[in-house]
């Protein structure tokens, strides 16, 4: 499929695949730290999803450009991780500044998890996937944003469930992170049903 001309339906398939079938969190299990950390409340989860979408929407294409026009011509592929992390760190800084300027309460609610997007493996993972799947520039943009939306969807679903944990009788040993991980596994299992969508 990679070398042919892509039609609209191919892009739709790419988006559906990134959000449902190969969900970055629930099928690839990348980015679990913010997944468990910011999913206790719906509003924080939603803000985190927006922040990740913005960061990934920017860093995905930029890392692709860096790969294509700097690293490959100069044969520096061994610097890939370093260059990508640098790009991600810079954009996280940028998002932090913008959020701080625009919304102080949101800035405080995201707290430590905002700088942690820097080391969010969902972000770095998507950047690597763009390269590995040999996407062109447009496909990279679409896949990056769709992948981040998949991350956001999983985060919001998780927050919806975890908000109800307050009123659930959870055995003491399973409380908090343990039940969070079990829930994540069960959501992941149910997302496996989407595998049937792909031929």
């Amino acid at each position: 499929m990679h070398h042919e001309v892509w039609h609209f339906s191919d892009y739709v398939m790419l988006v559906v695949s990134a959000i449902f079938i190969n969900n970055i969190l629930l099928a690839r299990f990348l980015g679990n730290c913010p997944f468990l950390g910011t999913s206790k409340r719906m509003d924080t989860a939603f803000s985190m999803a927006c922040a990740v979408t913005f960061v990934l929407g920017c860093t995905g294409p930029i890392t692709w450009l860096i790969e294509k026009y700097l690293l490959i011509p100069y044969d520096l592929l061994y610097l890939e991780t370093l260059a990508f992390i640098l790009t991600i760190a810079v954009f996280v800084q940028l998002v932090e500044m913008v959020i701080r300027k625009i919304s102080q309460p949101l800035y405080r609610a995201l707290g430590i998890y905002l700088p942690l997007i820097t080391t969010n493996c969902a972000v770095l993972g998507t950047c690597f996937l763009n390269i590995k799947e040999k996407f062109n520039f447009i496909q990279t943009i679409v896949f990056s944003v769709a992948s981040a939306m998949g991350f956001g969807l999983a985060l919001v679903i998780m927050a919806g469930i975890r908000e109800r944990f307050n009123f659930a009788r959870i055995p003491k040993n399973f409380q908090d992170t343990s039940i969070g991980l079990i829930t994540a596994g069960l959501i992941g299992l149910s997302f496996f049903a989407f595998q049937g969508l792909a031929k």
Partner: protein
Amino acid sequence: MEGILGATVYPVLVMGGLAAVFAVMLGVASRVFYVEVDPRIKAVEELLPGANCGGCGYAGCADCAAAIVRGEAPVNACVASPPEVYEKIAKLLGKTVEAKEPQVAHIMCRGTKDKAKIRFRYMGIEDCRAAVLVAGGDKECLYGCLGLGTCVKSCPFGALRMGENGIPVVDRDKCTGCGTCVRVCPRGVPKLIPASQKIVTVCNNHDAPPTVKKICEVGCLGCGICKKVCPEKAIEIVNFLSVVDPSKCNLCGKCIEKCPTGAIQQILPG
């Protein structure tokens, strides 16, 4: 030559160039999105307890500190701080402290399991907020303590513990009067009272006398005997519940003697 270029010069140039471009970008952005922060806000925030209890009415200690510095809140806005902290904040901002009587929480219910009647056996989630959702709670009294300890669990200062009789007890040394318990209790059983108040009607029931008589042995009937015997006119009956005005009360103890159910209690030694 080509090998040296590829191994050293290019990597340094590429990474250095990338870093330089990003550095300039961030530098510009930090100017554009610069947020002025008053250094006094940070200083005041450090003086506050940091429990984020919300007793001051702001979203947290940081919010409260900002409001104090802006002058929107008084220097003693934090209900959970001791007076020394107010003085430190006042000194920092060049203001003076206005005296404010400290408050403590008191659980306004004595309806233990043997004294207050139960309508059914509640076997649900151990949380008062969940229990009131089931037919309004298991007690006949619709105003009394449900005894599942939601206030105990949510007290940010650990000042509440569950008494043996199923009614929480306030540790007055630890209680800061932040009012978190008042907010979380679905029935508003904990109430904030002045720390010096000695005589209190320990009941929260607003039902008429015959109803209270049927459902609780120790509830305030709202009969008004205390009001009649009080020589200082310090007691009012508000909606079938007696309320003691501590500024008028002289601790004569007549109301305590005459109260038919013992709802009026002396909570501190005279």
